[in-house]
């Protein structure tokens, strides 16, 4: 069993930029990339023919959420290269952020030290690019409820959310055949909020999605370092030489943080009135071959995990890597799934032991685990 400390890079890019991201990842010398399909949403004003009804509609554009792992010292360089390659500094293109992670597995070959290249493209003025403290707000809601949450976030004017599809595991699997009556389809909602405003964002999200009620979903907040954040919140015609999003982005760079645009001085006062939340939690991401994570998740439930979220990933390996024989062909399956569990530190220790004992790292699962700290989590606590 190997244990590896790394930086997890999350890059969200418009689907038309996927090829650029993949090419850049190859040039950086990374061996494996995981991606899932999602959509970025923005608002567009629409003519109102009637006095009632909404004056704006939501426009969805497909995107891809990439994740890969780099040595911690390469984190900033990797983000700069990606943002430069796909021009993520332009609003509407995507976001890139990083967070600390510990990886566990038998075969952790995410990069080749000798081939890692950290030099950014010539034209990127690296010295002027600074990462800013953001919180990645990850929310799981019933399928169809993500749109409402996205609209609220867009109307707050903090950034563009990303929605992808997943499945819920947990209570549903304990109901026997009656589980078919409970929809397992979920929407996974990701939103990068400036740390200064994230308390308020969490508060609004909890109220909008009704997360303080039973069976409505789950929210977690993870501190990340963001280099580029998609701030395109509306798609209306531009009337000036620079869009408001570009002005904000420039001010962020000049001020060196996003604290200047805190939208509410009273944000922190909301903290006391928030529903039950758990701080200092741990996120386990079990990444394995599609359809093989179920037994490990069940074992995790037995040691205290309350639920899991399953999302489908596609693994992409560097083409020049192995020339797989029949034995490796099974290992080279690109269909992967990610089961995410967020647990308390006490449960985390037991869960780690359980995962090590499970067959997650062996055939046919061929998986690994990513463990990362979570700032806090919100869900219905009963009563």
């Amino acid at each position, binding site marked *: 069993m190997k244990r590896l400390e790394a930086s997890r890079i999350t890059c969200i890019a418009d689907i*038309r930029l996927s090829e650029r991201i993949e090419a850049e990842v190859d040039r950086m010398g990374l061996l494996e990339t995981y991606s899932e399909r999602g959509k970025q949403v923005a608002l567009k004003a629409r003519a109102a023919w009637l006095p009632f009804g909404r004056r704006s509609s939501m426009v969805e554009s497909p995107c891809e959420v990439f994740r890969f792992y780099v040595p911690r010292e390469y984190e900033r360089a990797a983000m700069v290269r990606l943002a430069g390659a796909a021009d993520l500094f332009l609003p509407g293109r995507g976001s890139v952020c990083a967070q600390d992670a510990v990886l566990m597995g038998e075969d952790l070959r995410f990069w080749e030290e000798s081939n890692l290249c950290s030099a950014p493209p010539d034209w990127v003025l690296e010295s002027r690019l600074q990462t800013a403290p953001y919180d990645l707000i990850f929310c799981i809601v019933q399928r169809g409820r993500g749109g409402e949450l996205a609209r609220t976030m867009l109307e707050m004017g903090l950034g563009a959310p990303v929605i992808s599809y997943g499945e819920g595991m947990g209570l549903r699997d304990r109901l026997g055949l009656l589980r078919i009556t409970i929809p397992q389809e979920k929407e996974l909602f990701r939103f990068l909020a400036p740390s200064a405003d994230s308390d308020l964002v969490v508060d609004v999200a909890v109220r909008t999605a009704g997360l303080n009620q039973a069976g409505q979903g789950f929210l977690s907040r993870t501190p990340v370092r963001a280099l580029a954040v998609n701030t395109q919140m509306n798609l209306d015609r531009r009337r000036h030489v620079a869009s408001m999003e570009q002005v904000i982005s420039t001010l962020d760079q000049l001020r060196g943080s996003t604290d200047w645009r805190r939208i509410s001085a009273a944000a922190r006062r909301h903290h006391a009135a928030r529903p039950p939340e758990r701080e200092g939690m741990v996120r386990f991401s079990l990444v394995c071959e599609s359809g093989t994570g179920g037994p490990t998740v069940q074992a995790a439930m037995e040691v205290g995990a309350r639920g899991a979220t399953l999302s489908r990933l596609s693994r992409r390996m560097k083409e020049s890597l192995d020339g797989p024989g029949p034995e490796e062909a099974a290992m080279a399956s*690109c269909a992967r799934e990610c089961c995410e569990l967020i647990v308390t530190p006490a449960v985390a220790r037991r869960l780690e032991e359980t995962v090590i004992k499970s067959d997650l790292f062996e055939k046919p699962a061929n998986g690994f685990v990513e463990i990362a700290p979570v700032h806090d989590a919100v869900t219905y606590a009963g009563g």
Partner: protein
Amino acid sequence: MADSMQKGLTVHIPFRRKCSLIWMYAKERLARQVRAVAFITAYLAVFQLVVLRAPIEDFAHIALGILAVVCGLAFFMEGLFLAIMPLGERCGLRLPARAGLGVLVVFSVILGITATFAEPAIGFLKAQGSATLPWRTPLLYWLLNAGASWLVGMVAVGVGLAVVAGVFRAMKAWSLKPFLFIAIPLLLGLSWWASRDLRSASIIGLAWDSGGVTTGPVTVPLVIALGLGVSRIAGRGDETSGGLGVVTFASALPVIMVLLLGVLLAPHFPMPGTMEEFFSPERQAFSEQVAGGEDELRALAAREMTPEQVAQRFGPVQEAPLSRPHQRVQVPHSVMRALLINAFKAILPLAFVLLFVLLVVVRDRLPHADEVALGLVFSIIGMLLFSYGMDRGLSSLGNQSGRALPRAWEVTERPDKEVLYQNIQEPLLIRAARPDGSVAEYLPMAAQSGPRFVPFHRDRYDVTKGEYRYVPEVQPVAGDEAFWGYVLVLVFVFVMGVGATMAEPSLNALGVTLEEVTTGTYKRSFLICTVAVGVGSGMALGFGRILFAWPLVPMLTGTYLTALVLTWISTEDITTIAWDSAGVTTGPITVPLVIAAGLGIGQRAGVAEAFGVVSMASVMPIISVLLSGFIISARRSRLDRDYSAGQAEALPPKNQEVQS
């Protein structure tokens, strides 16, 4: 170990809460199907009552049938999502990685052949060619009767090869366009070649329609799920376009196989001729070959000729004549029993193949075996209820509308309102001259509002009793001009096509899958509406061909060439969605309604066969979906242009883009 854990973690829910959960679950699914079926049902009823002014017969049975359709669709769709599609996707995920390429090919061929035999489309094809006469179209008659096993066999081989091709495409992420640019001209060329010979020309419509009906409501979702599974494991290219395409292959390859069969067999069949020639002793060997044997030839003669002619030609007739080929081959002891057997035949063989491959060949375990078992039971119950409901409800309503359709352009009689006038004497008659010099006779009758002139037909007048049987006539709904009647019929079939397509289970399954893999950026409702408009247009064109006797090959050539040109300039995603949509459109709801309307119109229009409707209803959705792709792209480009006006670089174009 997992089972014991599952057992230990089981949560007990109070009985009332369980009932509430089940009720909510059932209500949501039933409501979805009510919404899907409501439009076509209401449309057929309103059109018949208001436009055609014909009463709905057997209303109670029809209402019961429609209820059964709704329940059947709800069960069937749930069965698809619980069992059939997860099994297909799991096979696609596991088989390429754990078994060799050879096993994958064998599995694909077996799956394709099983699918064809499990959901035989020959019944539909026979119904479409019910008016076929052996002396006018000998090869077509033989293929639909004595040679039906050849037809089904070739179609099965075509579908088998299609599944292999689709799986390979998903694995290698090949583009669908080269296949289309080779296969469609080949199909058109073969059709043109077949049309040069009078013997093989008759099977062109059959071949094209067989491509449209081969893939049934179980097969389509299954092969789509299989393709997506293989595409996911291969991970090359985009999941949306990579996983689709199998249905396109399954629509095109059977047509090629049937056309090849026709071209090869044509030299061994006699040229079309008259009935007298067909039954002449000199051509007995050929005629027996066409009819399928001596007994069949005698039976055919007994049906088509007078007893004296049969006795003169074949000697005394002893056995009872066989039924016409388009009539029900046999009447089962119990309709429900026959439908149940059909439901088992449609689902169990395919499920057996999938389970055998997963459990025995790949040695995988089913994560939710109880759910899969329940899904299979749901599928069978759903198919049983659905078939029963279609037979008794929607088809019956469609049949009534179909029978009443000729009222749109011709004068029809109302025997149910017949009046018997007594003591009628010749001197009462009034004669009037027509412009052409002929004489029309009228009978003046007293009515409350004054005297009324009733048309007098001598064949209904009993001179000895002085009784006249008057059958009221209804004037054409669209006026005296038959043209406007035809137009009304085409409008009717267009809306019927739109409504029926909206309820098609295969298309719904494709829409759900697309919505899933594109994270909702390609909406199910958008796909269904676009395809429905295409099917409606195709059906209108197909019936236009029947009513106006348009030639089929030029129509197919024109529409397919249009589709190819649009394909050339479309993205890969839209191309696969469009061509796959074409294969799923002709399902268990559309087809019976096509038969109903086709028979109603075809018999009055005096055409030999009503083929071509399905092939036109298959090609037009391709065009409509491809056109919708341009609208989406234009809208997206406008948004990008609006927003990034003045920026140095807009987002680059990319082929794998799907948005709505």
